[in-house]
C-alpha cells in the first residue's frame, strides 16, 4: 500500500468523523411538543410572542433571567425562561427562535434569535411614514 493511500484513508475517516460530529452537535428546528417528548435534547423552537400574557424581568434580582410566553408554529403555548437579559427591541419582534430544552412544562432557553420587522429590511414602512406627514 502506498503512503498516499494511507493518507487518503485517514482523510476520509476524519471527514466522516466531522460529518457525524456536526450531525450529533446540530440542533433541530421543532415545536414545543417535540421538545417535550425528548427533554434531554436541545431544540430550536420558532414562534411568536404572546403579547397578552405578562413578561417577567427583574434585573435587580437576576439580570440574566427573563420570562415570557411563546406560541410556537403549531399554536402551542409555553412559558419560556431565557437565561439572558431581556433583549433590546424584544417587544417589536415579529418572530422569535429560542434555543434550549423543555423542562416541567416550560422551556429553558439558553439563547434567543429575533427577527424584527423594520430593523434592516423594510424601507417601505419608513417611506410610508415619511410621505404621509402632511
Amino acid at each position, binding site marked *: 500500500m*502506498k*503512503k*498516499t493511500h494511507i*493518507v487518503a484513508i485517514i*482523510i476520509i475517516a*476524519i*471527514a466522516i468523523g*466531522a*460529518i457525524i*460530529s*456536526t*450531525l450529533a*452537535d*446540530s*440542533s*433541530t*428546528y*421543532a415545536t414545543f411538543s417535540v421538545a417535550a417528548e425528548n427533554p434531554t435534547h*436541545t*431544540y*430550536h423552537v420558532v414562534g411568536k410572542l404572546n403579547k397578552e400574557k405578562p413578561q417577567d424581568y427583574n*434585573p*435587580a*434580582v*437576576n*439580570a*440574566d*433571567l427573563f420570562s415570557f410566553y411563546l406560541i410556537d408554529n403549531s399554536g402551542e403555548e409555553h412559558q419560556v425562561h431565557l*437565561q*439572558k*437579559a*431581556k*433583549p*433590546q*427591541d424584544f417587544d417589536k419582534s415579529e418572530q422569535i*427562535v429560542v*434555543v*434550549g430544552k423543555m423542562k416541567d412544562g416550560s422551556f*429553558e432557553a*439558553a*439563547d434567543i*434569535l*429575533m*427577527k*424584527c420587522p*423594520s*430593523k*434592516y*429590511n423594510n*424601507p*417601505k414602512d*419608513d*417611506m*410610508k411614514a*415619511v*410621505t*404621509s*406627514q402632511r
Partner: protein
Amino acid sequence: MDTNYIGEHLFWGKIGNLLVILAGTAALLSTISYYFALRKNDSAWKKLARQAFAIETFSVLGIFGILFYLIFNQRFEYFYVWEHSNSVMPLRYILSCFWEGQEGSFLLWMFWHCVLGWILIATSKEWENGVMFVISLVQVFLASMIFGIVIFGHKIGSNPFILLREHPDFANLPFIKMPDYLSKIKDGRGLNPLLQNYWMTIHPPTLFLGFASTVVPFAFAIAALIQKKYTEWIKPALPWTVFGVMILGTGILMGAAWAYESLSFGGFWAWDPVENASLVPWMTMVGLLHVMLIYRYRTRSLMSTYILDIATFFLILYSTFLTRSGILGGSSVHAFTDLGMSGHLLIYMLFFLVLSIVLLVINRKALKEHTEEEHVSSREFWMFIGMLVLVIGSLQITFTTSIPVFNKLFGSKLAPPADPIDHYNQWQVPIAILVSLLLAIGQYFKYKKSDSKELWKKLSLSLIIAAVITGLSAFYLGSYRVHYYFLFFASVFAFVANFDYFIRTLKGKFENSGPSIAHAGIALILLGALISNSKKEVISRNLKNIDLGKDMPNKENIMIEQQTDTLPMGSYFVSYTKREQKGVNVYFDIDYYKQNPSTGKRTGFPSQPLVQLNERMGNVAEPATKHFLTQDIYTHHLRRT
C-alpha cells in the same frame, strides 16, 4: 402622465447609469479581445483588450466618484444614498456607505480587480492574455451584479443609481405621485451604527483586496490549462499567492480586532458563519502556497496545486454566495441584506466551478505524475501533511457553516449547533495543535531527505525551552483542560523553534527569514487566542445573598444603580457615577477602584462604555475595554431601561 418632480438632480445619476453599462460592456469586450489575443497570439487584439480594460477601469472609477458625490451632497432622491447615509453621520464614515450596501461592495471588489489587472498587464508578460482573459471574465460577472436591468421579467443585478421613486419596493406608494415628495424627505435612513467605527473604515477594503487577490493564482491556473503550459505558471503566480495570504489574513485579523473592540460578545472570534466564510479560503490558500513551494523546489504535487488553487477561488465565490444570498438568514451579524440575487450569485459560482472542473478533466492525463514517493524525512512530505491538516480543518468548518444550505437542498430541518463555539473548538483545537507542531519542525527538514540525528539535535533546545515554559505556566494557568496544555506547548514550541531557526540556522539573515517570521507570527496568534479565550473570566457575577438555585445560575450580567450601588467585582469595587449624552452617543461613567486596607489609598480607573442611539436599527452598545499588560477589563452596557 408625467409628473414634474421638484428638486431632483438627475444629471449625475444618468451619467452613473451610463458608466454602469459601459463598465459591463467594456469588461465583455476586454474578455473577448483577450480570448482572441490568446488564441491567435495577435497584438491588435491585445491592444483592443487593453483599451477595453482601460475604459472599464475609467468607468469603475467614475461610478465610485459619482456615488461619492451623491452621498456627500445628500441627494436622497437616489435610493442608495437614502438607504445608506444620512445627515447626522460623521463625514469620516462616508466611505463606509460603500460597503454597507451590496452594490457598493461589488464596486469595491471590481475596483481592486482593476488595480490588480493593471499590475498584471505591466508585469505578467507572456501570461497577460490568458490571465487577463480570466480576470475580465470575472469582471463581467461582477459588473452584471450592479446592472439593474430587467430582461425577460428577471432583474439582473441591483443598480446603485436607482431613484427612490423608481425602486420596486415603493411601487404604488402615494409619494410617487407627489411632485414635491423630496421636500418631505428630511433625511436618509443612515449608516448601520456598527459600521461607524474606525476599524470598519479599513477592514472591508483590506478584506476585499484579499478576496480580489485570490483571482490572480486562479487566473494563472486556468490560463495554464487553456494554453496547456501546465507548469510554468507556478513561478509567476507564487508571489501573488503570498500576497493574497498576507492581505486576506490581515483583513481577517482587522475584523477580529473590530469585534473585540466594538461587539458585545466579549471576544474576537465567535465562529460566526461570515467569519468562517473568509477564514476557510485563507486556510486553503495557505495550503496552496505550500504545494506551490513543493512544486517549485521538487516538481511534485501538480494536481494538488491545481485543486487547491481552484478550491480557494471557488470558496471565495461560495462565501460571497453565503453572505449575500440571504441564505444565512438571521444566523450572522455580518450578512448583507438579501437583494433577491441568490440565483444570479449561484450562476456566478457554478459557472467558474464547472469551467474549472471541465478544464481539469480534459487535461487530467497531462497532470498525472510518475515520480517515486517522498521520503518521510523530507521537507516536502511534511509540507504536504500540513496542507492536508489545513484542508481537513477547512472541510469541518465549511460543513457546519453550510447547514442552512443543506436545509435548502435536502429540505432537512437541522439547526446550527446550540453551542457553536464548543462545537468548532473541539475540532479546531486539535487542528491548531497539529498546525503548531508542523510550524515548529517544518523548516528543519531539508528537501529530499534529512538527517534525523541532526534534526533532533537542532530541535532539542527549542523542545526543552518550550517544555520549561509550559511547566512554569502551569502556576499561572492553573487547572486547565489537557488539550489546552498541548496547544500551549505546541504554539510556544513553534515560536521558539522559528526564532531559533532565524538566529542559529539563518544567522539572522533577514532576506531568507520570511517563513520563520510568518510561522512565528502564526504561533503567537494561536498562543494569544488560547490564553485570552481560556482565561476569560466574568467578574460581574451576582454576589447578592440571593440563592437562585442550581438551575438559575447568575451568569454574567448584573444591575447597578446610578450613584447608590457599589458592587464588588473581581478585585475591584465598581460604581456607576454619571450618564451623559453627546449627540447620538450616551456615555456611562463607571468607576473601578481598589482600596489598600492599610493606607486607605484608592487606586483604579474610570471606564466609559457607550450606547449609540439609533431608532431605526436599534441602539448599539459599544463596550469600553481597559487594557493592562496581563489582562483586559471589559465593560459593556446591556440595555437602556
